[in-house]
């Protein structure tokens, strides 16, 4: 009969530890990061992202670097990553964010302020439209 494998058992804690990454932190709670998508619902292809960054009193925050990462809910699809451009006081935008397939998307926004503070937010959206040629 086969015996247990002690080396493998010793590796267990190390293996399992990596799974404790947990949920992403949301950053500075005094910052409000929001995104709107035009058109809504977006279709396969390009859509405009309108992003706002404010403090908790509603004051606009300028000069932030904002990166948007779009992931499909199904694993295995390459994420779409783009950087927003400043468009006005507390306003940022991505003129052509590319949704590559219809289905459920999660947009993850990460804003970093010049003073080092940062904030994250997520928005789920459903992308409609056709992309033929493959299951």
């Amino acid at each position, binding site marked *: 009969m086969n015996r247990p494998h002690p080396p*493998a058992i010793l590796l*267990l804690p190390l293996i399992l530890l990596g*799974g404790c*990454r947990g949920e992403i932190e949301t950053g500075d709670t005094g910052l409000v990061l929001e995104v709107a998508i035009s058109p809504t619902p977006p279709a396969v292809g390009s859509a405009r992202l309108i992003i706002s960054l404010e403090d908790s009193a509603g004051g606009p925050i300028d000069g932030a670097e904002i990166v948007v990462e779009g992931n499909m*809910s199904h694993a*295995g699809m*390459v994420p779409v990553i783009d950087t927003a451009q400043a468009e006005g006081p507390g306003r940022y935008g991505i003129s052509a964010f590319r949704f590559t397939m*219809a289905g459920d998307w999660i947009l993850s926004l990460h804003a970093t302020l010049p003073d080092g503070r940062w904030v994250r937010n997520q928005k789920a959206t*459903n992308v409609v439209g056709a992309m033929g040629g493959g*299951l």
Partner: protein
Amino acid sequence: MGRRDLLKAPLLGPFLRWRHSRSLLQVLFLGVALVVMADGFWGPRLAPKNMAGVLPWVHWRGFVALALLVAGNLFCMACPFMLPRRLAKKLFPAQKHWPKALRTKWLALFLLFLFLWAYEAYDLWSNPFLTAWLALAYFLAASVIDGFFRGAAFCKHVCPIGQFHFVNSLASPLEVGIREAEVCASCRTRDCIVGRYEAPRGLDSGTKALRPHERGKLLQNGCELWLYQETKTGNMDCTFCMECIHACPHDNVGILTRAPAKELWEDPQRAGVGRFSQRPDLAALALFLTFAAFMNAFGMVAPVYAMEAWMGRAMGTTSGPLVVGILFLVGMVLLPALLVAGVAAASSALSGSGRTIVQEATRYGYALVPVGFGMWIAHYLYHFLVGGFAVIPVTQEYLAFLGLSFAGVPAWGLGPMVPESWLLPLELIFLELGLLVSLVVSYRIAVREVGEGPRAVRAFAPWGLLAVLLSAAGVWLLLQPMEMRGTLVGG
């Protein structure tokens, strides 16, 4: 041409002949399963960033499809659920016989339906937490069931994933089988089925055979799925566990090449299985998996969402699981049953076989396995080829969390393994190859049942037509716009 034996191949052969090769594979896969569960329970909720989102639904399914296509049931061989189950066998009595009423595939078929329904209804592909629970439930079920019952009752009668492997491996090019029939004919110990003990069985001296508890310590298991090598035929119920290979004192069992799918049209008395033509449960399982291949793929294309929304409105419900359950019940059970019944009745009437619908379907149902297998491959390979490299950045992030920075910054841009333009042609090739084999198998079964000539053509025609219709449905599916969407009935 003689059959080639994988155990005699350079490098691979010595590894497979090594007594602990299976355990090593299982330990590796156990490690992967533990990573999947740990990340599923405590890792990021976003499936593309989580091992439980990537490894089971992109890689495992893709590798299963490839392994079955080019080799055989390798994933049962490396099944990680067997390690805790082996421990349970040591801790618990495992002396009960599996209930006679459950010694069929009906329970496994029902669980397979539940598995496929849960996958769609609860979006398991986008839910690492539920995926981890599913894996944990699997470990528990395998351990508890095989801790109480003799042999590999879980594998043979319960495991839905195993049934998928068993049925589709009927079309695989490798099987565990005997090298020389004469050696088995002269064998008196039959260690391949009863196991090898300290004391010999006793038959060689012409005395009454010793019972297992009279023979001292068990040195090597025999087949726990009750497949006696001398009369074992093909891959049904074979987990490639290699116990028989290690148990045989004559070194007469190998992993042999064969004509893929040939066993689908042959109907000998099979050890531990019986005749395919006498097993309505097996035929139902084969037919279910065939139609399930198309329904599972249907869940990934745009029209299904419109249909689910319409069904939700018509039923006055927003319950996704309920709507998916009814859709799958119709698409995987009721509609296939009607179609198969019609085809079986036509085949019986045209050929004048005089058989009932069930008798006819139990003989010809296996012919559809290849076209279903083709659809499974097309579907699973799509995900694998589109996202095969996605495991790299997820692993990089996983290792970075452990402080192992040598893996570098996660390269989230990685994913596709082939150009997008290759996908559809590849999918169509597998689907149509499956159709071609199904047509050959249907005709061979017809010849076996009614002999050569016009009667065989008439018996074959309805089954051939059904295979063509299924393939056409597959082509339609592949040409549909794809949507990776959860079940939003109200949407």
